């Protein structure tokens, strides 16, 4: 399964993942604390410029961008209908600001780099028994099995279609879950034998 990361090089690719995440956290907090339309307009303009400066790298985010535009239009229209245009403008600007920067971060940061930042952030939880280094292994396992279960889903659907002439739909949900639980047992046994965990 591919990530939303874009290989097309941009200036933002060179900025460390931790710095980008910290900027996003600060921006997100900032725009949610302010109600000043001028500040929000200026922030959104900056975010749009930063996003646009990524050029062809943004093509990968086209479906996400369409969703963002749709959500913004719906929220704006709803507030206009409720005769609260100012509230609508503030909501839409906040949404555009944070979502565009979130997309910029995703497009320009490899998931391994973000994983390393997450592990670093989780490191203080080691005293509570959390093992941050497990995170990367769990993500890898999860991705491997997402593809596997999708194939199983397709096989069950095909088998149901052959038997009944109709798509399986929700009827194959229970067999899929049973298959998944049995696979989980086998994998858990293997991991226990291999890693003692």
């Amino acid at each position, binding site marked *: 399964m591919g990530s939303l990361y874009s290989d097309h090089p941009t200036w933002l690719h060179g900025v460390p993942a931790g710095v980008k995440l910290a900027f996003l956290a600060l921006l997100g907090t900032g725009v949610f604390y302010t109600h000043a339309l001028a500040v929000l307009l200026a922030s959104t303009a900056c975010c749009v410029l930063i996003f646009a400066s990524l050029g062809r790298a943004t093509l990968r985010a086209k*479906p996400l961008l369409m969703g963002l535009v749709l959500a913004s239009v719906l929220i704006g229209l709803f507030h206009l209908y409720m005769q609260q245009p100012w509230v609508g403008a503030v909501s839409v600007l906040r949404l555009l600001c944070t979502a565009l920067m979130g997309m910029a*971060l*995703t497009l320009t940061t490899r998931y391994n780099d973000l994983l390393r930042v997450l592990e670093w952030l989780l490191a203080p939880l080691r005293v509570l028994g959390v093992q941050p280094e497990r995170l990367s292994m769990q*993500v890898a396992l999860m991705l491997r*099995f997402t593809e596997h*279960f999708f194939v199983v889903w397709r096989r069950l659907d095909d088998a149901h279609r052959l038997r009944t002439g109709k798509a399986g739909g929700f009827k194959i949900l229970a067999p899929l879950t049973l298959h998944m*639980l049995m696979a989980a047992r086998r994998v858990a046994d293997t991991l226990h034998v291999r890693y003692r965990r």
Partner: protein
Amino acid sequence: MALVSLFAALIAVFGLIPKIDLPLGVPITLQTLGVMLAGCLLGPKRALQALMLFLAAVAIGLPLLSGGRGGVGVFFSPASGYLIGWPVGAWVTGMVMHLLPRATPRGAAISAFLASAVGGLLVVHVFGVVGLVNIANLSWEQAIMGTLVFVPGDLIKCVLCATVVHTVARGLPDWRLGG
């Protein structure tokens, strides 16, 4: 660890089934069924871990949400309240399932319906409403009215969850439902 990863994978597979977009920019997806199933089948602790792992994978940019959405940006969208509510909802579902009787397949199915209605429906919607109020700037009344649109669909998911739990209780009698 395997169960947590594999359940997170199952939730991701549910995301490959097409979503339906509703007004206010919040989609109806089958992934909330994954939240309910995680609580009922894994118990509170592992269900919470599975959902945290899934959201961590989304946050690092993997397109695992329905419609191929992913990345940090989704946590700033109007639906973010629902996303943040998923781990808590899964935990509450697991807790309720753990407390209710589940000795027979029928009893387990009824318990699963109640547990998913409390955790996967009520708790997730409370978080969703808070998200709509804060991000879409709706009033509490408007947000509650907006979220009510999802309730019939989520009740169907509770029934589906109960059906799956019933099948698991019959097919894998030694499986510890609710952890």
